[in-house]
């Protein structure tokens, strides 16, 4: 893992939220978003300087709150924009799919895994 490289690259933009013990994620989705970036970098989809540019763009566009509470919102937006720029998906598809996941969750009884196929509108038949 190129932990150090990542931290160095994004520190120029905005340091990862952390405390004395290490990285801090306030909610599970933040860890998921973080891990997706590490995985895509591992696949060679982008370099850390490229990632830092993408993140920097979001931070500048929105203005980082002093307490860093929106850090991973910007992180996720940067990831979306980079994925779109790399031709992996489109805004429309991501929007459609997010709506399908939200509907699938509402249609999933508590205690059952949320599956895209539970979406009553698309039944999971949706273009990825």
């Amino acid at each position, binding site marked *: *893992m190129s*932990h150090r490289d990542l931290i160095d690259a994004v520190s120029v933009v905005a340091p990862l939220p952390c*405390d004395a*013990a*290490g*990285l*801090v*994620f*306030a*909610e*599970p*989705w933040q*860890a*998921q*978003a*973080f*891990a*997706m970036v*590490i*995985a*895509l970098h591992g*696949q060679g*989809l982008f370099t850390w300087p490229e990632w830092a540019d993408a993140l920097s763009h979001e931070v500048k566009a929105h203005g980082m709150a002093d307490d860093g509470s929106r850090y991973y*919102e910007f992180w*996720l937006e940067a*990831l*979306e924009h980079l*994925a779109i720029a790399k031709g*992996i*998906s489109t805004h429309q*598809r*991501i*929007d459609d*799919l*997010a*709506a*399908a*996941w*939200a509907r699938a*969750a*509402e*249609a*999933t*009884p*508590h*205690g*059952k*895994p*949320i599956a*895209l196929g539970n979406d*009553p*509108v*698309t039944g999971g038949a949706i273009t*990825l």
Partner: protein
Amino acid sequence: MSGDHHHHHDHDHDDHSHLTPIEARVKALESILVAKGLVDPAALDVIIETYETKIGPRNGARVVAKAWADPAYAARLKTDATAAIAELGYSGRQGEHMVAVFNDAATHHLVVCTLCSCYPWAVLGLPPVWYKSAPYRSRAVLDPRGVLTEFGVVLPEAIKLRVWDSTAETRYLVIPQRPAGAEGWDEDRLADLVTRDSMIGTGLALKPPGSSG
């Protein structure tokens, strides 16, 4: 194509799952990346475990430490865990009802669930990867003693095992037994003995370094 479906808008929000808009976007991106073969869900879990020095505030350890150190707090925790946990400034995002179950010499508690989102991460941090697996859930119910053995927790036969299944409304926090050898410790030191696994019942609290037994 959706015209044939029956929609049940019963407004009973307690018995189904929910994703916030940002959680739904994360799921959307993840499913796209998985479908494109760019990420493997199992690899994401590994990455999270690798970097997880601190995911979510491990507030539960503070709750347990306070319950060990302060009998009056332990009593409040037993009566109304939601309020007692809120006293320390922690509350779940969905305002879920918390119940604290206390291990003692006669009973050991084990919590299952989390095929969905009912893990009280605001108190415990993120669930371990194995905890989300369907086999863990079913085996913990059918053979809790066997599951515990796999986690290296071997309890005397005389100790009764109780398995708690989280529901949409109620999340459980196991209060492990206070280990011997930590007499007189303050809450900060005690909290270091409280592992995540001990608060879901698949582990025991750590023994103080140098203590016997």
